[in-house]
């Protein structure tokens, strides 16, 4: 009897642990598919679901919040997708949220993403229909890829033409590449340029070292003393009796010129004053003009 009870509890433990493992797995897999717990339904309509399957994940802000529960054709151009979503996410999904079908990784499954709506919209209700945006189809990508590949083909063709012309033509570029004489002359030019820059470098070092600058300095002081002597000479010339008359005449002419200028300015002033008075007394501008003309004549 004792032996019998010994094996019974071991057997019971064995079976119960096995059952717990099995049921646990079933429960967790079911939880993954959102079969248990609080959920609510959402609906979205698409033109094409591009291979979305039942059981695919639904993502909201990048988090898995539910699964695709069912997909059915309602008309020949629209598919209704039913989603099961965790209840505790409902308050974050607004009525203007947008459903979109995307790729989960490079070669992975399709995934349905819900983009959050704006903050001030209402939260969605159970079984609500949210707006959807059509997915980027592989065919579309391929089409746009084809255009860019075609363009690339044209560009490379033209590039090939250009390089052919460079290699075989007579232009400056082809000479640069193929003509020895041309390249030699460029080389000569460059050598000359180098020599001249060498010279220039020497010149600047001399300038910096002071041998040249001291010379320049002495030249400048000589120049200064020279100009001073010249101005003395000029003064002497002005005062000499031979040339005094000339200078006086020049002064007089200058004074006369000034007086003339002053006279002209006065005249002008007077005329404008007259004009103003005419305008006030007579409304006809022609008369005033005439008067002005007369005054100028006077």
């Amino acid at each position, binding site marked *: 009897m004792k032996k019998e009870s010994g*094996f019974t509890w071991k057997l019971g433990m064995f*079976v119960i642990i*096995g*059952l717990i493992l099995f049921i646990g797995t079933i429960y967790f897999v*079911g939880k993954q598919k959102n079969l248990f717990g609080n959920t609510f339904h959402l609906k979205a309509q698409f033109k094409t679901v591009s291979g979305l399957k039942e059981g695919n994940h639904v993502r909201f802000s990048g988090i898995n919040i539910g699964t695709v529960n069912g997909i059915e054709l309602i008309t020949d151009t629209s598919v209704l997708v039913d989603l099961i979503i965790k209840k505790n996410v409902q308050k974050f999904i607004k009525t203007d949220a947008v459903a979109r079908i995307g790729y989960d990784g490079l070669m992975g499954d399709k995934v349905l993403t819900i983009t959050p709506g704006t903050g001030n919209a209402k939260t969605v209700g159970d079984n609500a229909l949210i707006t959807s945006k059509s997915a980027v189809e592989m065919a579309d990508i391929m089409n746009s890829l084809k255009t860019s590949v075609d363009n690339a083909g044209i560009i490379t063709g033209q590039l090939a033409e250009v390089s052919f012309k460079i290699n075989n033509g007579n232009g400056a570029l082809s000479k640069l590449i193929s003509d020895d004489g041309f390249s030699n002359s460029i080389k000569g030019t460059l050598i000359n340029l180098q020599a001249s820059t060498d010279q220039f470098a020497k010149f600047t070092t001399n300038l910096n070292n002071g041998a040249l600058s001291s010379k320049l300095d002495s030249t400048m002081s000589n120049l200064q003393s020279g100009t001073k002597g010249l101005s003395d000479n000029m003064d002497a010339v002005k005062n000499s009796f031979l040339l005094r008359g000339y200078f006086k005449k020049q002064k007089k002419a200058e004074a006369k010129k000034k007086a003339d200028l002053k006279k002209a300015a006065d005249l002008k002033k007077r005329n404008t004053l007259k004009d103003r008075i005419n305008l006030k007394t007579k409304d006809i501008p022609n008369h005033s003009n005439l008067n002005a003309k007369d005054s100028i004549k006077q």
Partner: protein
Amino acid sequence: MLISLKNIFVNAGHVTLFTGRFFKEVLRPPFEIKEFLRQCYIIGYKSLPLVAITGFIMGLVLTLQSRPTLAEFGAESWLPGMVALSLIREIAPVITALICAGKIASGIGAELGSMKVTEQIDAMEVSAINPYKYLVVTRVLATTLMIPVLVVFADAIGIYGGYVGVNIHSDLNMFRYFQQVLDSLDFLDIIPATIKTFFFGFFIGLIGCYKGFTAANGTESVGKAANEAVVAASLTIFIIDMLAVQITDLFF
């Protein structure tokens, strides 16, 4: 030629009658509960260490062997899911069933064969005990119910072995590993695989019992019965597996 063909048909007929008798007897009282529990203990609990070691090694080795191929695609993150899927769908059920065919079918075949040879079965019949009910029904029922439990253990330990295997080369958190495993699983992976283990268990028990029960007189036939039980059970497991996978594939 004709005689051997006829022998095959005769054998098939015997097996069918034997199976039919099982279904007849299993529903008819009295039930041998105590003997059934004892057989469950011997078949289930006593096989656990063997199955556990096999499962662990299978998980570990499968992970290590799959890694280079997946690493080539840069898809090492799929390793937990892949190992769990192959373990649960195919490897754990078949390996466990084969191990049990080796351990249990041969054991039953040898036990019943020696009882038959030493005329213990006849003696039971004389003492008004239904030997079929006492010996066959309890054992077949025990294997049918215990092999699935053993497979569940093998699954769990094998997946743990996969965790160890993943952690040899990279560093993966236990929680994250099991999350990835559960992520890759579907009911379609678990349910058909579990259903087929019941069939594995049933045929392991039935073939062991049949070979033992129909052992010819003579000592050497005991060994022969044990040997034939293992071979036939292993072969049957593969055939059932193929059928089960085909049927699952057809319907889902």
